[in-house]
């Protein structure tokens, strides 16, 4: 006797005797209790996992969009017949953009020739490409006065290294000119109007054409980019439509909102499974109340109040709910870790406030469901007159 009293777990059960009785009652019909619990496990996983998976997917998509969310691309308003942006436009853009880096670009198409291999490529003319892009290899001169920068994809394709010589233009037409490659440019991760990854960047004056085809504005943040876009519109499109602005941040935001609604929809579907789990707990508890009718009658006879019986029965429902919920939470977390590892490359990214909220909500909802399902059977058991329960 003394030894069983000294075990800490026993002491814990003794502290909550209603739970002790509840636990014993549940272990009596192991298979049935486990199945009811499984219902809660599935329900909690459905809510938590769908929520977390959805949020992770959203993070993954907006994450890959996010690094360009602070970029604006200002183009001439083609529908209004504006063909290029002038120096004056660029000055105006610089004026209203404040801190943001402004890189005017002249875009054209040309042929390049590397060791006899030719290719049609996009050519960008820029004075300070270093303001908008980064080099994977070599150094970007600022300003760019001579030499060429080659995008990483193109460099891969044609096996171009820093220091190589390339010919841009058509030698047969007499426009061919040789450039030394100064740097290889990193490719943009997401879509963008201007992606130097497969292009060649030359000093501005070496690219044919008039004025500028685009102006790339890189702000500190998506928020700042948004404000800059508003300022540019106010300034340049005041009297007539002169520029159109491609705002990546806005698109990112729209995609995010759409994903969020998809996510809520998924979670809604998940909660239906929890509802089903609740019904199965109701069923289990009701059967248990009917089967243990006499036993409950004895408890009432030996002095258990109605509220005591109610408490025991509700403890059973609560045990089913919390244990099932805890198991479901663990599974959801593991699943979340996996999906984060796969999609984001960082398993621990699962620990975001949104995800934890989903998991907590699922656990809470699971527990609440079982408690509510236990109410009717518990009430029924507690209110039976002991003399009726004990009638043989």
């Amino acid at each position, binding site marked *: 006797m003394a030894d*069983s009293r000294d075990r800490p777990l026993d002491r814990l059960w003794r502290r909550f005797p209603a739970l002790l*009785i509840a636990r014993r009652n549940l272990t009596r019909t192991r298979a049935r209790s486990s199945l009811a619990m499984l219902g809660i496990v599935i329900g909690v996983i459905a809510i938590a996992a769908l929520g977390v998976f959805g949020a992770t997917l959203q993070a993954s998509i907006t994450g890959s969009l996010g690094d360009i969310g602070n970029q604006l691309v200002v183009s001439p308003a083609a529908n209004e017949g504006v063909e290029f942006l002038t120096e004056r436009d660029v000055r105006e853009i610089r004026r209203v953009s404040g801190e943001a880096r402004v890189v005017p670009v002249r875009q054209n198409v040309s042929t390049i020739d590397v060791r006899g291999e030719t290719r049609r490529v996009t050519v960008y003319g820029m004075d300070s490409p270093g303001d908008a892009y980064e080099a994977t290899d070599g150094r970007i001169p600022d300003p760019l006065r001579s030499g060429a920068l080659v995008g990483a994809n193109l460099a891969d394709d044609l096996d171009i290294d820093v220091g190589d010589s390339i010919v841009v233009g058509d030698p047969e037409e007499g426009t061919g000119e040789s450039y030394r490659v100064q740097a290889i440019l990193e490719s943009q991760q997401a879509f963008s109007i201007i992606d130097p990854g497969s292009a060649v960047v030359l000093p501005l004056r070496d690219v044919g054409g008039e004025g500028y085809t685009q102006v790339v504005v890189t702000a500190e943040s998506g928020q700042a980019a948004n404000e800059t876009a508003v300022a540019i519109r106010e300034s340049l499109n005041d009297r007539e439509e002169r520029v159109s602005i491609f705002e990546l941040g806005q698109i990112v935001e729209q995609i995010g909102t759409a994903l969020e609604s998809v996510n809520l929809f998924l979670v809604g579907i998940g909660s239906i499974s929890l509802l089903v789990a609740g019904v199965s707990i109701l069923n289990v508890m009701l059967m248990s109340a009917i089967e243990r009718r006499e*036993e409950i*009658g*004895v408890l009432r*006879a030996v*002095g258990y*109040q*109605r509220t005591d019986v109610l408490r025991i029965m509700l403890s059973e429902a609560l045990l089913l709910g919390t244990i099932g919920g805890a198991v479901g939470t663990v599974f959801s977390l593991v699943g979340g870790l996996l999906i984060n590892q796969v999609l984001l490359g960082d398993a621990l990214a699962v620990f975001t406030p949104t995800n934890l909220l989903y998991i907590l909500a699922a656990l809470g909802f699971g527990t609440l469901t079982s408690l509510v399902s236990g109410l009717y059977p518990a009430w029924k058991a507690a209110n039976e007159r002991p003399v009726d329960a004990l009638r*043989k």
Partner: protein
Amino acid sequence: MSAGDGAPVIEARDVVKRYVTEAETILALDGVSLAVEPGEFVAIMGPSGSGKSTLLNVLGLLDEPTEGAVYLDGEDTSTLTERERTSARKRTIGFIFQNFYLIPTLTAKENVEVPRLLDQDPETPARAAELLAKVGLGDRLDHTPGELSGGQKQRVAIARSLVNDPRVLLADEPTGNLDRQTGRDVLEQFEEIRTEGVAVIAVTHDAQVADYADRTITLVDGRVSADEPRVATTPTGSLGASGGAGSPEASGSSDAGEPGGTTGPSDDAGEEDDTSHGG
């Protein structure tokens, strides 16, 4: 230490119990009065349907009389709320059932603790062990009911009924599921309990019980038809020789004491025992 002249610990005064069903009104108890003193052992006998179980339920505050009242220690219980009646039951009354009604997943000791389990009294486990030792099950503390014989189960039930220090023990066919010898063991336990001042009231078909009782009350059709003290003397031991239901000593009491001799009407309260249980 049989009936003294002290105040009754439990008393029924003119108790009437009517069951109203759709078809008819059944008069289960028709003005029963009964007073039991501390340490007294009373057997209630009678044919099936005579109202024995109803009387026991009313005495145990499990059921309310239609008329009349039950007094515990002189206190009228008819004015108590459901909650107060439950508390009074816990304080004063211990129950023993024919089917033992132990909780199968709890050990013997835990079963004895059940009535006090919610009180979180640290003394309860020790008290339960002590009571089990007293009924001769000191070496069975951690056995579950499935591992115990019928007699052992009933002894666990007796220990359970005593854990709250009751003033009255109410037993419904306490020997109904036990063989004769085991039944006698249980009655020996009652004998010991009442020496400690606990009144024992047993509803039974078993004439053997009457042999141990201070008096035997016979109910017929919801009325007390006989209330007789035990004839003479025989304490416990000498009964062992006679195997039949009707022992010589028992013949002094009402003929209703013979289990085989009663062919009562079909019972309203389902008193017919089910001896297939147990073991």
